[in-house]
């Protein structure tokens, strides 16, 4: 049975990983979804760039790009063409091979993330039963590419940016994973499709603290503001891609947005009910939710200043990590207690969970969280 054509049926039955009996086996499926994913990612990135630039423009009391095409819709295309036609400049002292390889290494994992994200019920490249583990494993591989870029550029700004990025990823992986575990506990599966199916009510209501932690850690992971230290333009010029131009820069630009879309898609899948929703077709629900999450990222980027590297670390280890552990324990207790799945009990749960969020965040920031000293005697 091929999941491509039979959306919404196969999830009750466990599907063994045997090749279907049509010619080509999994290859058609693979080909179809690879094309779909690349098209989807590229389109979504363009949409994201458009939303980011226009939305940010309007929030900053200006218009944003509005000259290319109707409402400036073709601006991402124009940007892409411009960047393709640019000269590719490589610094003389750069490590040529690594410099060339870095964008590719960064770009591939960003695409690979989408392999396990369900666009509709069962509509995904590989319904891995360890989907979320796969995501956790793959999402930090981009860092290798970014560090390669920073190292190979032989530029001190690039190196600083790359170092910051590695430090941030290493720290933020922990609360990120722990926040996911809460969801996995409730859903009882590691497969993203199963998690979506388990969400009769979006998990943001059952896991508000988990959502908050995941959003913060996710933003840090993909270096969106206020955690955009690795390309902090006012401090280290452009961070790791200072020395990149032309198509290679475009790749990094693409990675940045593809990762943002990926995180938004994961948040949608884990917390917002994925493709589920009334009236509209599932894929439209999915895209809408992704864009809504992305808009929130744009919104925070427009408003918030950037935090410092030691504060970033402090936030990860002293704030997000303990809260994530507490969240995990509370979720485990809730799951073990196995509250009845009826409406009044669910409402109580929602209220309890939000209260826990508010109380924990306030208590922690008031009594336990200290940023520490910023100055070091030299």
């Amino acid at each position, binding site marked *: 049975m091929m999941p491509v054509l039979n959306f919404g049926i196969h999830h009750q039955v466990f599907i063994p990983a045997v090749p279907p009996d049509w010619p080509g086996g999994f290859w058609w499926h693979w080909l179809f979804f690879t094309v779909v994913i690349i098209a989807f990612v590229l389109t979504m990135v363009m949409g994201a760039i458009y939303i980011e630039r226009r939305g940010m423009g309007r929030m900053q009391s200006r218009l944003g790009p509005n000259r290319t095409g109707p409402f400036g819709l073709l601006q991402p295309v124009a940007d892409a063409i411009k960047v393709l036609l640019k000269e590719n400049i490589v610094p003389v002292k750069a490590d040529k091979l690594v410099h060339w390889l870095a964008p590719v290494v960064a770009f591939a994992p960003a695409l690979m993330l989408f392999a396990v994200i369900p666009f509709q019920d069962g509509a995904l490249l590989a319904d891995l039963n360890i989907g979320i583990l796969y995501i956790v494993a793959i999402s930090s591989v981009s860092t290798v590419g970014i560090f390669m870029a920073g190292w190979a550029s032989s530029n001190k700004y690039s190196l600083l940016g790359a170092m910051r990025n590695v430090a941030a990823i290493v720290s933020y992986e922990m609360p990120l994973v722990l926040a996911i575990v809460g969801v996995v506990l409730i859903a009882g599966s590691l497969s993203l499709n199963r998690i979506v199916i388990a969400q009769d009510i979006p998990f943001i209501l059952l896991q508000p603290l988990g959502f908050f932690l995941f959003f913060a850690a996710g933003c840090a992971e993909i270096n969106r503001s206020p955690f955009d230290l690795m390309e902090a333009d006012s401090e280290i010029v452009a961070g790791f891609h200072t020395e990149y131009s032309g198509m290679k820069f475009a790749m990094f630009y693409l990675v940045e947005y593809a990762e943002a879309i990926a995180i938004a898609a994961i948040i949608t899948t884990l917390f917002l009910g994925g493709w589920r929703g009334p009236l509209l077709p599932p894929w439209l629900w999915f895209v809408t939710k992704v864009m809504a999450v992305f808009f929130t990222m744009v919104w925070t980027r427009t408003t918030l200043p950037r935090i410092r590297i030691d504060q970033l670390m402090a936030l990860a280890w002293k704030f997000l990590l303990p809260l994530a552990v507490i969240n995990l324990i509370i979720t485990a207790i809730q799951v073990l207690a196995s509250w009845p799945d009826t409406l009044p009990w669910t409402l109580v749960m929602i209220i309890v969970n939000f209260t826990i969020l508010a109380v924990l965040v306030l208590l922690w920031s008031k009594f336990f969280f200290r940023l520490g000293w910023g100055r070091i005697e*030299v």
Partner: protein
Amino acid sequence: MALKTEPFVLNMGPVHPSTHGVFRMRTTLDGEVVVDIEPIFGYLHRGVEKLAEQRTYTGIIPLTDRLDYISSMNNNLAYCLAVEKLAGIKVPERAEYLRVIMAELQRIAAFLIAVGAFLNDCGAFFTPFMYMFREREKIVDLLEMVSGQRLTYNYIRVGGVSQDIPEEFLPALRTFVAQMPGFIDEYDRLLMQNEILLARAKGVGILTREQAINCAASGPVLRASGVKWDIRQADPYSIYDRFEFDIPTGTVGDCYDRYRVRVAEMRQSLRIIQQAMTQLPPGPVKAAVPHLIRPPVGEAYAHLEAPKGELGFYLVSDNSIAPYRCHIRPPSLINLTALRDMVRGWKVADLIVIFGSIDITVGEIDR
């Protein structure tokens, strides 16, 4: 700190997004920590002081526009005060009031840029900058209306101002003064209590009271360190003794205090404009001053409270049509004296924030 690391040198600038012009800092970093910095100037050196020795007294006014190019009116005023002191020229009443209005409008505009750029350095992605520029645009509109230029106003003359304000100026100014406090409140809401900004700016880059005085810091930098010293009240020039206003001061002398002092000063400037607007008398706007001024032999120092600090002109006359020596006391340059002590031990990110909170204009540093 058992890990032994090797410091490296990073040249920040002259082309860098947040060095506010062509300014260069030769920083020695140990990882992210700033071990040492050496500011390097001179990329915008135009020899204004030497040029001034070859120009007529009136011809220097356009030059002063180009010192601190975001507060041209204050520069014009400082220079004209010095020449008036040197030549003993009395300025008509109306001109004095117009000067005060223009100088205060310019001060608000300059502080808007200072605060916007500071918040931008903190990493707020251009949003405060854009909002501040929107307000500055309104001021620039007003100043364009009276002077005909948007940046280098060249409006204040020796013995008054170049021409009277047009009749549509006062109503527009009234609207502006009525609107502006609302906008300042909005900026306060935007970032004043933001936790991230507090974490980034509070306690960062502390300049103690003693050191601020010893380093001859002036303006908001000095006041943020808790020194109640504003030349408008300490040594009133023009007609500032007729207005009521407070001097906002900080307590700690960190970046956040400097930011807060600037925002508070905008409100005080609005108060001054409001008073000046209501008291504005009719009359001539320029004293009878010859085209080529020949002040008697002597010297004069006139200083005023520019947005950056104490801006002074030290003029020596030899009774010719050009000054024998024209020295400019640049507040931006002197405020930077303490930069090294302020940033040592902080991170690179703090270096940018501290530097942004001092608020310099390279046109004035290098002259």
